[in-house]
């Protein structure tokens, strides 16, 4: 604190602390707390209330029936009772419209088997995307950071940056066109006679979750390349040379020198890729052309904007957040890196 | 401009468990060229940063012109610091750099520029005022830093090894210029260096530091001829050191039992017999013995002879102990020296000090 005031003076320090506090509280923590809070309650209509209303209506009709047959002073008395009953009914109906807020774990425990299955599948595929991306990207990052000459590396970086910077939706869309019923792949299979487009005998790639998987790998693979590249770029080339001169084999060099060095980058890449895949709404939405809800993000979306069940949606979202957070800790453990190494 | 005095009263600085500066009392007189000399890491920069206000001492008080600087931040102290790496503002032109302190004081642009131009003349940078500092040579950058510091008319100018990045020739030249500027302005200079030549030639007084403590404060001559501690004796200039025990002490002299036999030197500190002590003799105060025997005579074997130009370094050795002599270069006469030689020195040229840490330890 004194260090801050000494550097920036009181007024600026106050502004910086104020803005950062707004950011942390107003945009990061409190909204997520609200989301979490919302996931722990349901709006409950008191369960006996509709019964009570039914019974009151039944009473009312009995009274009306009595009223029709009543004579003399009893009639006024019945009329009075009818008025009271009507007020009671009005009160009950008002109660029915204002449901009670009940704190419960129900939003979590009541997840349907289907939704749970979707959830597991999403996590599984996200993990697969991550592993595949790691395996595919490590050689690329290594080649650009360590082997290529500076000029060539700049050129190759350009080749990475362009697809990376193009909108995610459009990148996925490209794969939709490839895997479509009359898309590039089916047409090519048609040429070699495996499919026959004329009679609609094509392979329905788009109907399998594999299509989402393929597009997802494509969409997020570059989030793995850049972090690994960034760490490997700082690895002293002489270190690799030295290991080679000592007679180490290529495998050994990678296993003992390069990979340990690249660990922070790998951790970041894995965290980013997993988080993006597990939470991706765009890829399944486009690959299924918005029709099926086979991905957890789509299930969440439906809870919010189709079933209009925000509490349930909040619970699902919170579950996803927890899984992603656990994944971060898992990666920190696996790669033995600290918080400060992440997102560097 | 006129200088102010600077007073350190029991000032110390501790970082965690590193004592960078031990409790120190020091008085620097107004208008003085005062140097702090010491090996790397001895706490020189730390002292300077405390005086300029970037570090708050762990204990003690700093007074400038009699005023306690305790609550006064670096931007309100009458000091200006020239940083070890100069810290010129890379995004500003030369004159803007120099005028920065005036801008901070709210001087209008026109006046600022005029004043900056005066300083540019003072440091001989006319013609470079619009350049970016990155486009200047090392010496020119040095001058910008000096002009920038002087622009705020400080009472005390603090310089942290300002010449260390320059080549030897330029350093010589800048020494003279700094000294001239100091004379002209009358500002108190506190000059940090680990180059003793620099300190000895420029300073009115020098403080020698070792491991966070000031070991001696004195003018150049006193420092060289009358060092207070073995560290100062060996850090400033070269020294032959003979370690031993005092055998007898009388009439201002002490006789030491050393690996080279008994040797006699000035007993300035009045050491008594039995005390463990060192005898220090400057290489240039020793001679080869021919004819009359001096107070002390040693025999040793010639090992090497290095030519320095006007004089010759003669290295001798006996029982793993080495001795060096600076002899005037007398041409062919001295070239054939070899084998065992008798060397000697007068007892007046040897100084006996209580043993302690040497600069080369």
């Amino acid at each position, binding site marked *: *604190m004194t260090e*801050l005031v000494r*550097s*920036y*003076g009181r007024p*600026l320090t106050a*502004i910086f602390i*104020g*803005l*950062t506090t707004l*950011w942390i509280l107003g*945009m*990061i*923590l409190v909204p997520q707390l*609200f989301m979490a809070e919302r996931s722990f309650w349901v709006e409950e209509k008191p369960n006996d209330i509709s019964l009570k209303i039914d019974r009151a209506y039944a009473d009312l009709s009995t009274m009306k029936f009595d009223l029709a047959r009543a004579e003399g002073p009893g009639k006024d008395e019945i009329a009075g009772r009818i008025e009271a009953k009507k007020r009671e009914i009005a009160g009950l109906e008002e109660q029915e419209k204002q449901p009670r807020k009940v704190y419960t774990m129900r939003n979590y425990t009541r997840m349907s088997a289907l939704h749970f299955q979707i959830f597991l599948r999403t996590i599984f595929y996200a993990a697969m995307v991550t592993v595949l991306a790691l395996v595919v990207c490590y050689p690329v990052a290594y*080649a650009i950071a360590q082997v290529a000459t500076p000029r060539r590396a*700049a050129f190759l970086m*350009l*080749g990475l940056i362009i*697809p990376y*910077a*193009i909108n995610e*939706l*459009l*990148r996925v*869309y490209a794969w939709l*066109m490839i895997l*479509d019923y*009359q*898309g*590039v792949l089916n047409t090519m299979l048609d040429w070699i006679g495996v499919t026959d487009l004329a009679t609609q005998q094509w392979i329905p790639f788009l109907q399998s979750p594999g299509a989402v998987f393929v597009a997802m790998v494509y969409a997020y693979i570059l989030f793995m390349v850049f972090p690994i590249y960034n760490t490997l770029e700082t690895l002293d080339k002489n270190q690799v*040379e030295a290991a*080679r001169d000592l007679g180490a084999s*290529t495998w050994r060099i990678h296993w003992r020198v390069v990979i340990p060095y690249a660990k922070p980058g790998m951790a970041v890449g894995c965290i980013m890729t997993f988080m*993006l895949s597990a*939470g991706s*709404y*765009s890829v399944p*939405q486009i690959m299924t052309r*918005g029709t099926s809800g086979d991905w957890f*993000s789509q299930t969440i*979306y439906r809870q*919010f904007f189709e079933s209009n069940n925000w509490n349930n949606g*909040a619970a699902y979202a919170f579950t*996803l*957040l927890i899984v*992603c957070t656990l994944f971060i800790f898992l990666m920190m453990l696996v790669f033995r890196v600290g*918080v*400060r190494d992440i997102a560097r | 401009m006129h200088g102010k005095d600077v007073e350190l009263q029991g000032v110390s600085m501790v970082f965690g468990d590193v004592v960078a500066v031990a409790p120190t009392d020091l008085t620097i007189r107004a208008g003085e060229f005062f140097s702090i000399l010491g090996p790397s890491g001895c706490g020189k920069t730390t002292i300077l940063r405390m005086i*300029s206000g*970037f570090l708050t001492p762990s204990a003690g008080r700093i007074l400038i012109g009699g005023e306690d600087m305790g609550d006064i*931040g670096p931007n309100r102290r009458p000091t200006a610091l020239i940083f070890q790496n100069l*810290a010129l*503002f890379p*995004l500003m032109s030369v004159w803007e750099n120099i005028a*920065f*302190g005036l*801008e*901070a004081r709210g001087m209008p642009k026109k006046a600022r520029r005029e004043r900056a131009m005066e300083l540019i003349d003072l440091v001989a940078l006319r013609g470079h005022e619009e350049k970016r500092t990155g486009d200047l040579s090392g010496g020119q950058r040095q001058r910008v830093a000096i002009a920038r510091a002087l622009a*705020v008319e400080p009472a005390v100018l603090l310089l942290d090894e300002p010449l260390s990045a320059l080549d030897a020739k330029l350093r010589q030249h800048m020494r003279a210029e700094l000294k001239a500027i100091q004379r002209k302005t009358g500002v108190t200079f506190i000059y940090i260096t680990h180059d003793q030549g620099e300190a000895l030639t420029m300073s009115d007084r020098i403080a020698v530091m070792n491991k966070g403590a000031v070991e001696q404060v004195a003018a150049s001559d006193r420092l060289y001829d009358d060092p207070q501690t073995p560290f100062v004796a060996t850090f400033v200039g070269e020294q032959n050191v003979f370690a031993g025990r005092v055998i007898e002490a009388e009439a201002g002299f002490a006789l030491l039992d050393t690996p080279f036999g008994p040797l006699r030197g000035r007993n300035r500190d009045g050491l008594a017999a039995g005390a463990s002590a060192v005898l220090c003799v400057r290489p240039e105060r020793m001679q080869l013995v021919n004819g009359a025997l001096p107070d002390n005579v040693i025999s040793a074997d010639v090992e090497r002879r290095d030519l320095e130009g006007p004089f010759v370094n003669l290295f001798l050795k006996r029982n793993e102990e080495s001795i060096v002599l600076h002899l005037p270069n007398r041409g062919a006469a001295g070239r054939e020296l070899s084998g065992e030689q008798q060397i000697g020195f007068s007892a007046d040229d040897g100084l006996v000090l209580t043993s302690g840490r040497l600069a080369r330890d």
Partner: protein
Amino acid sequence: MTAAADAGTVAVERAPARRWSNQVLNLYLVLFFVYLFAPLLVMSAAAFNSYSYPSVTQWQGFTLKWFVELTRDERLLQGLWNSILIGFGVIAVALPLGLSGAFILTRLQSRWSGILYGVLVSPILTPGIILGIATLIFWRNIGVAGGLFLAMMAQATFIASYSMLMFMARLQRQDRALEEAALDLGASNFMVFRRITIPFLAPTIFTAGVIAFLQSIENYNTTVFAIGGNWTLVTEIGSRFRFGLSPVINVIGVIFVALTVVFAVIYVALKERERRARAALVG
């Protein structure tokens, strides 16, 4: 010079093994880049096919009519305008937040700074849909419904983190002595900030602004939850996949690809120039 010569001898000594493994690596790179670019080519090509369903295989002749169609598409144009509005909003919100966070984190010496850092970068590590949902739920309690404003706030939450990281990287390269020198010359903290720190950060502020804007325009996962009944260019594209998929989307793709190529080339060229300048300085 000697280093290069040494490397040369090493390369000669181990030439066969090295050449072989480098060939494999090169082939791998070629395949990888084909994988990256082929789908984009397919998508771009369909923009010029006059067939009304996006396709490259049912080629019915070259046309530019889908470009014309795009200029008549009111919803897409409105979406673009909304995206631009949100983008500027995000710049205005995210940059000050990112700067504040960076200033604090680079100077705060406390046990808490690690935790603070974790919290401030957490939006980057949080799935985008969750940022959208949390923003939506939070603001609903204050009575604000989904729309452009919420989309902007939700995006700014994580874009601010990205800006912060950029500012921190720059601030860590700043020579503290410059600030101290300015203070020593009598400048107030504010003047140091205005005359030294901000000019030093200026190029990064510009870059961070551009990147924030681009990230905002491109964002889908967060926006789709926070946008309510309104729409941006990207959410509109997203909804076209369900109804009304036409080569107009491919035209947008072509434009995106073209703009990206131009920007990326400029970016890499600038980087390369900076690298060469640095290399020249070093020797």
